[in-house]
């Protein structure tokens, strides 16, 4: 029975109409939900967060998972994208008159961040592994410190009053576009170059992979996507400040990536969704609501000792759950595997979704 379902599932995914149909359904839903109010504002907001986090996780996975580096600069990229796009929509572009200019601002924010990604890529030519981690951490601190010191863009007060231009349909469009972009990059020759660098950089250099160009492209693409995510974030919250984009934020994105699975786009999507939803689900009133059907005899002590303290307990449960997941799935839930729908036709048979055999591939990925 399971085998039959599996076979049918695989056949559906292999069909040519699956992807466009899925996208069309998603698009319709993304427009219908806010327009008809099918889900309340809070759930819509959570969906938007999920979208933004998917962009962040997938772009970080490109550098950390596929390329095997350990980059900690992602929150810095997000910050640059957020600030530059916010300044553009508030000071330069007449968004009130032409709302479509919002997307120009997002693109510009992404491009400016990509330039920063270029800067981060440069040290990576000489420096690898944990040392690159320090370099990227230093970048993050420098960006944060610079933002705090430049009073013209608000300093520690940040920027408030950013126009609220991010909506569910736009987030859906940008998320799909960027995931598609990253997925195409990964399965292109540059993507193979990225994997080659992870496996063995010197050998791939010898095999005529232009490691410098590949690294630069990977970092720039990753930064570009993070910048766009930052721009969407800024225009959602209407307020940004340097405190938001610190090491803790990078740690959150890292957790999403490694939880979902390294070197896996489906994994990043899963990780981002799980993390965002779990964080919101574990709120006292939500849990109380979900468990309200329990008889009072069970519910009342549960509420008194557990649910009421979920505000603090939440942050104890989440890391514990993370550690448990890591103990059972060391490479993340979908680590090094991929959701069949993302793999291009020509790769399906060789890539597959079966656990990779313990060849050299594993050895190199293990030395990350």
């Amino acid at each position, binding site marked *: 029975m399971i085998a039959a379902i599996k076979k049918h599932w695989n056949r559906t995914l292999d069909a040519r109409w699956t992807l466009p149909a899925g996208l069309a359904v998603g698009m319709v839903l993304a427009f219908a939900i806010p327009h008809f109010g099918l889900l309340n504002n809070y759930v819509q907001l959570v969906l938007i967060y999920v979208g933004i986090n998917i962009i962040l996780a997938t772009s970080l996975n490109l550098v*950390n998972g596929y390329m095997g580096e*350990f980059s900690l600069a992602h929150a810095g990229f997000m910050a640059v994208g957020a600030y530059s796009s916010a300044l553009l929509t508030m000071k330069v572009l007449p968004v009130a008159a032409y709302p479509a200019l919002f997307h120009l601002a997002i693109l510009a924010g992404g491009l400016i961040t990509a330039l920063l990604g270029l800067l981060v890529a440069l*040290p990576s030519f*000489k*420096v*690898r592994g*944990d*040392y690159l*981690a*320090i*370099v990227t*951490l*230093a*970048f993050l*601190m*420098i960006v*944060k*410190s*610079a933002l*705090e*010191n430049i009073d013209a863009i608000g300093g520690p007060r940040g920027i408030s009053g950013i126009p609220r231009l991010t909506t569910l349909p736009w987030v859906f469009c940008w998320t799909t576009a960027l995931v598609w972009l990253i997925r195409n990059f990964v399965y292109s020759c540059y993507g193979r170059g990225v994997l080659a660098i992870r496996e*063995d950089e*010197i*050998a791939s250099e*010898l095999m005529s992979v232009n490691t410098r160009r590949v690294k630069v492209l990977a970092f720039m693409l990753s930064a570009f996507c993070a910048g766009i995510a930052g721009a969407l974030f800024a225009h959602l919250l209407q307020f940004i400040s340097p405190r938001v984009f610190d*090491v*803790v934020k990078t*740690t959150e994105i*890292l*957790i999403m990536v*490694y*939880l979902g699975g*390294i070197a896996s786009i489906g994994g990043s999507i899963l990780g981002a969704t799980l993390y965002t939803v779990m964080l919101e689900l574990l709120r006292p009133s939500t849990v109380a609501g979900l468990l309200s059907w329990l008889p009072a005899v069970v519910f009342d002590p549960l509420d008194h000792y557990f649910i009421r*303290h979920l505000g*603090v*307990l939440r*942050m*104890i449960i*989440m*890391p*514990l759950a*993370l*550690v448990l997941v*890591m*103990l059972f799935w*060391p*490479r*993340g839930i979908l680590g090094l595997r991929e959701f069949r729908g993302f793999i291009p036709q020509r790769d399906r048979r060789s890539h597959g979704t079966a656990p990779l055999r313990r060849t050299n591939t594993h050895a190199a*990925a*293990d*030395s*990350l």
Partner: protein
Amino acid sequence: MTQPGIYWLQQILNALQLGSIYALIALGYSMVYGILTMINFAHGDVFMVGAFLCFLAATVLKLPFVLTLLLTMSAAAGLGVLIERLAYKPLRHAPRVSAIITALGVGLFLENLTLAFYPYPQHVPPLLHNVTWRLGGVAFSSLQLIVISLSLTLMLVLDYVVRRTSVGVAMRAISWDKTFVPLMGVPVNLIISITFAIGAGLAGAAGTMYSLAYPVIDPYMGIMVGWKAFIAAVVGGIGTIRGAVIGAFILGGVEIMVVALLPSTYRDLVVFSLLLTLIVIRPHGILGAPRVQKV
């Protein structure tokens, strides 16, 4: 107006104190990295737990300084071994990144657990009587001197252990080659646990001394100190003990000197730019040896 010489002398003392505390924590990072090639991101939080243990020992048990220090060091060592056994040992054959993320998770867990008990910052009662001497305008506080000398003593003891004792030899052997050393009859698991115990014990000592020097503690104090000590260990050359100490004193020195010379708002900016440059110039840290890579 104090004379420039005096001013610099004072700043140098400040740098030494800050550096020695960073050094005690950086040593833990370096030792664990040397033996397991793993960055133990929970280390900064073990330091924080050490400070809270010192607080408990001083307020609830009302112990004198030496006993508090010993108790904190042993309890922290125990915590380190516990974390290693529960969270890191099962992942020893898994990719390095999963151990790193697990370490981050353990760190978050420790922070928020402490927060659940102590949301308010706590004051650690002074365990040592502080005497301030003034010599020609420079204020020497006995506390500063004790922190510096105690840290240096612990570092020297560690150096002796690593170079002269059989445990130390075993630790160095394991960091060179993990596959063949067990065949020589070395109990790898035990040595690894001892390494974690020593590293965590040093972090506990750092926590105690930190609470003496800066008596206000809160659950999040380990984050920045932990990241800075990690940077110090890497700058000095991660995996080497001497490197960790040198890196820590450099970091402490640079932090203090930047504030002394430039407007203090630029401190983080300048410190991290300098570190960036240093790493790019010497990608393996100051005392680190590049790993030979076979193609």
